[in-house]
């Protein structure tokens, strides 16, 4: 990801177009389109947060759905207790979205520190497997958690409250999500070039060299993991609000896999690329089945089969993903 001042015209045009269309979509007045775009923005947030560990740190976390799910469950559990008029661990439940952000950050952050402390001692395939294992543990925990409806999940009757923001209004909610994403991307772009970001990237490049230079790289990787988890949990809070639903599926390995696919499709290590990846993935998920059904009735169900070859093509010919195709591969 280049600095703003170093971006070529293709970068600038792409950013301008993306921002412009993101700002204008609600004005189409098409409720379906706004909902779809909201979903894209939320997954864009989760995917670029994942890119902090995957792209910058070179750590393939196959368990990021855990953080997404934890964020979503904060919303669900708060809603349920508020609805029942019961307390949660003796505390009054809150439906304020900012309180829920904070809670999600604490819970996901705690989980990230505890699991990351173990995962980050390993590398490569072991890392993938251990992150997956921790996420699966959490998945089965929520599946068997009767108190919160087990695998049926929790249906929400209303969105979280956003102070003077009327989040129940689809357009307001959309802009709220967009603001979260833009804030994170600005932060991430700064982070990329900061001292911290350089150390994390250096540790991906050659961890041994970084340690010999004097960097305790484990601490930096753990911090990146923590940051990534916290932001992903924020996306989880938003996702629950977007869908009016929370269930164990949010923590499943399919979800973790989808997030990785979005990052790879969009462009690993570019932070902005995963936004494009999320858009492409969700548009394919939404429209490809219908398109396939036109060719053969019932073929739509198998849209995922086309995703495989697409990923192979990206892996072989476009290492910087969709972003690389659009803006060129020069850094």
């Amino acid at each position, binding site marked *: 990801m280049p*600095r703003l001042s170093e971006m070529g015209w293709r970068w600038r045009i792409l950013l301008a177009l993306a921002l412009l269309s993101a700002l204008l979509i609600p004005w189409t007045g098409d409720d379906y389109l706004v909902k779809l775009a909201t979903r894209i923005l939320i997954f864009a947030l989760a995917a670029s947060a994942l890119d902090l560990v995957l792209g910058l740190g070179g750590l393939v976390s196959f368990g990021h759905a855990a953080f997404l799910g934890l964020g979503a469950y904060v919303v669900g559990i708060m809603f349920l207790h508020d609805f029942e008029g019961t307390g949660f661990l003796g505390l009054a439940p809150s439906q304020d979205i900012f309180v829920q952000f904070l809670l999600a950050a604490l819970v996901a952050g705690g989980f990230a520190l505890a699991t990351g402390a173990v995962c980050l001692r390993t590398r490569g395939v072991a890392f993938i497997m251990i992150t997956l294992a921790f996420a699966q543990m959490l998945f089965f925990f929520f599946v068997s958690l009767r108190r919160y409806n087990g695998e049926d999940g929790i249906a929400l009757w209303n969105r979280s409250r956003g102070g003077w923001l009327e989040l129940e209004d689809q357009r307001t909610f959309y802009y709220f999500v967009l603001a979260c994403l833009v804030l994170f991307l600005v*932060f991430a772009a*700064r*982070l990329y*070039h*900061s*001292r*911290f*970001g*350089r*150390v994390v*990237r*250096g540790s*991906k*490049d*050659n961890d*041994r*060299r*970084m*340690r*010999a*230079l*004097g*960097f*305790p*790289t484990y601490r*930096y990787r753990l*911090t990146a993991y923590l940051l990534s988890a916290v932001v992903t949990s924020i996306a989880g809070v938003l996702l629950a609000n977007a869908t009016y639903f929370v269930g164990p599926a949010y923590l499943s390995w399919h979800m973790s896999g989808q997030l990785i696919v979005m990052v790879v499709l969009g462009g690993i290590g570019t932070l902005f690329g995963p936004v494009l990846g999320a858009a492409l993935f969700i548009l394919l998920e939404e429209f490809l089945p219908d398109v396939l059904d036109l060719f053969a009735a019932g073929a739509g169900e198998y849209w995922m089969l086309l995703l495989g070859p697409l990923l192979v093509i990206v892996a072989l010919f476009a290492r910087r993903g969709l972003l690389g195709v659009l803006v060129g591969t020069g850094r």
Partner: protein
Amino acid sequence: MSEEVLRAVDLTRRFGGVIACDRVSLALRRGEIHALIGPNGAGKTTFLNLLSGELAADSGRILLCGRDITRLPTHRRARLGLARSFQITSILPGMSVLENVSLAIQAHAGSSFRFFADAGRDPALNEPASELLARVGLRECAGLPAARLAHGQKRVLELAMALAGDPEVLLLDEPLAGLGPEEGRRMVELLAGLRPRTTMLLVEHDMDAVFRLADRVTVLVYGRVIASGDPDGIRRDPEVRSAYLGEEEGG
């Protein structure tokens, strides 16, 4: 000139049945170039790894400027002034040449838990990095991706990274490995130019370079120190000749 910067006492390390380092003791005096030589598999790299903290010693102690660092992790030792190069070139291939050195400077320039300010535009990091690059003759390559450098330039870059932060001790593992004669000559000049500011432990197979550079030489064979002293004495030592130098000339 006789102050001790680094002292290893009876360092021992086994790999299964192999004793790679067997009670190796060695002291580096401030400002000297101390060569560590020995045949393949003698345990030279293992010894450097014990000193730098990449490997834990089974027994023995390491003192840096009088401070016991035996149990410190690699990064702490590096921060205390123990820098090294690796036998197989170890740089950050994905970053520019300048970034490589500037990251090395960053390691010695306060906390890196800074998340906002642009480090690539920080003169406090870039200026010393550029100076170092100029010193080793890589200034023209500053903007290139490090992966694109020629092998010899990569080794010079690694040396520049090790020099960042003005280390107390420089551990060099075969800096001439894979260099052509001209590049090798320049590397020797570069190393000679670091004297007397930098204390060096130099592992090297190139005997011409060793005898040109070294103030003292220690010979390691099968994990044991068989001789240590000034270069002339080492050259004449019959045990060294039969165990090592003779082999070298014969082979």
